[in-house]
């Protein structure tokens, strides 16, 4: 892993990062409750424990950059700036949702923020990110595409095809592998003959680094370096973020495949706890800051629930709208 460079972040930025992580955490905790109340249905995949990855990476992106994520994308959406109201309404399936309610938890889209899902086919987002980056290059623009996926996706053929294509064509894609050690119930060592994902990526001929995905500052710094290199005309970069998901894969998972003790061990390294402790030690923030941000996040979540519950359903008459684009160009 990359050594963590001591890095002076200042109080304002510390508060910002913490606020973003807390928004995600509180939003999702509420979603879990809403799921048991059956207000949210379908598959719900929580990002709990991995917040530092999305928040860290997003700091490096500009408004014109694109983001492609997975079915575990609430964190990415929020960190990218998708309004929480629209996100919660999407969880409810309401027409005010970011995808008009049609996508639900797994398919959040917000094109005004270049947020392209919300892709629930493992590995399926990678080629799309390469294409978005290609479009930037062909249009003479300097936007990059950030593509998030789990370590499970690394086994898929599309990972291989896309890493090669991006490296070969020097496309400005930032591949971010969220290595949380499990793909559903399959531990990394049970799915990869060689488990060093960073090394795997480097073998395609692109800069590849691994960082502590629990450390928002380390993630941010690595993403900044990669994006800077790409803006300067560099090709694709790979960032392995070593992290852990604290909760089940989805709401249907009994977690028979891992020990409670292992989870507890990782919890001690949780991104919120470690960052808060560190910032306190450095005198950047105080306990009351944390509590205030938590309250703010909760208030934002409350408002989002209100918004969602007050929103309409899309009319059934519109079921077949948007199968084809409208209006015709």
């Amino acid at each position: 892993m990359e050594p963590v460079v001591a890095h002076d972040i200042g109080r304002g930025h510390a508060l910002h990062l913490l606020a973003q992580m807390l928004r995600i955490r509180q939003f999702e905790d509420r979603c879990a409750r809403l799921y048991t109340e059956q207000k949210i249905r379908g598959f719900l995949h929580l990002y709990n424990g991995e917040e530092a990855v999305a928040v860290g990476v997003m700091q490096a992106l500009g408004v014109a950059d694109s983001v492609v994520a997975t079915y575990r994308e609430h964190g990415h959406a929020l960190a990218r700036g998708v309004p929480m109201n629209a996100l919660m309404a999407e969880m409810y399936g309401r027409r005010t949702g970011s995808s008009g309610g049609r996508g639900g938890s797994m398919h959040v889209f917000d094109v005004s923020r270049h947020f392209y899902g919300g892709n629930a086919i493992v590995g399926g987002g990678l080629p799309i990110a390469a294409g978005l980056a290609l479009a930037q290059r062909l249009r003479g623009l300097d936007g990059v595409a950030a593509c998030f996926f789990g370590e499970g996706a690394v086994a898929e053929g599309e990972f291989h095809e896309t890493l090669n294509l991006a490296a070969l064509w020097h496309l400005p894609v930032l591949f971010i592998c969220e290595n949380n050690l499990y793909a559903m119930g399959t531990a990394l060592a049970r799915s990869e003959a060689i488990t060093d994902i960073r090394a795997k990526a480097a073998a395609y001929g692109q800069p590849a680094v691994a960082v502590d995905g629990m450390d928002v500052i380390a993630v941010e710094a690595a993403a900044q370096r990669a994006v800077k290199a790409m803006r300067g005309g560099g090709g694709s970069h790979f960032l392995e973020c070593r992290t852990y998901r604290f909760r089940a894969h989805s709401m249907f998972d009994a977690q028979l495949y891992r020990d409670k003790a292992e989870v507890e061990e990782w919890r001690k390294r949780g991104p919120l706890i470690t960052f808060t402790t560190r910032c306190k030690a450095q005198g950047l923030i105080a306990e009351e800051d944390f509590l205030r941000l938590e309250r703010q996040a909760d208030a934002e979540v409350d408002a989002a629930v209100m918004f969602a519950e007050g929103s309409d359903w899309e009319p059934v008459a519109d079921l077949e709208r948007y199968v084809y684009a409208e209006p015709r160009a």
Partner: protein
Amino acid sequence: MSASVSRTTYREALRGALREALTADPRVFLMGEDIGRYGGCYAVTKSLLAEFGEERIRDTPLSESAFVGAGIGAALGGMRPIVEIMTVNFSLLALDQILNNAATLCHMSAGQCPVPLVIRMATGAGRQLAAQHSHSLEGWYAHIPGLRIVAPATIDDARGMLRAALLCPDPVLMFEHIGLFNMEGDLTEAAGVADIERAAIRRTGRDITVLTYGASLYRCLEAATELSAAGIELEVVDLRTLRPLDDATIIKSVRRTRRALMVDEGWKSGGLSAELGMRVVEQAFFDLDAPVMRVCTAEVPIPYPKHLEDAALPSVGRIVAAAHAMVAHEP
């Protein structure tokens, strides 16, 4: 004849058939994503890893094309692999192996390379899983020569068709509707191997033959009960096998009722119901008192919210309405 039955679920019937096959035939093994430690994404294979060990219950990496292809190779090599693809939606990643290899090798090699492979996959909508987890493509797969396509709707068939698939020298794709796994009911102990070349008439009736399969069967039976009160009697045919289709049973029923209504959960255009309708028309045109009709899924990627998902799928209401429209046609 009073058959001995036991109470079980569709899921358990499948698991029982898997267990039985693993016990009886050393050539049988299972392979798929999360079928072992996790217990299967729909829990069908739960506990089998503990019973049969890692060699025979093989968790695979996320690589649909490789493990389906490996299933083909293992079948060529004398094994009887049962491959699980989590859902039909992900099977598209393995479609090259399925169409260009599994379905083709036997013919292309003039019979030297039959592929006795069973591929199980979940299919269907109804659980708000949205556009990448809800499609019903089994009727589409039925277009491919060289494959056998089965879709058990009942608990007896869940077990019996898996048994039959394992005895079959051809690649058999078995589609299990996600809405059926929890279904409880009776398993006929002595039912044996299912005949995967025959449809079954699940309800007899004089007015309209309904051709359906899988979870839609239950919507049709519900519609039949409702229509019966209105004096319209549906004959409900459970196709069971979508390729090859059992024309004999289908046509015989339609000749009697003189009307055919197809119900399936695939998209309408180019779906299985079109094929069924064509066969009826080709083989029984002059026996028909009304145009054939079909009730299928709206031609949209299935949306997440319940009201839209319900609106997209064939409902009892739509089946009833179609039946009324059909009898309104006087010969």
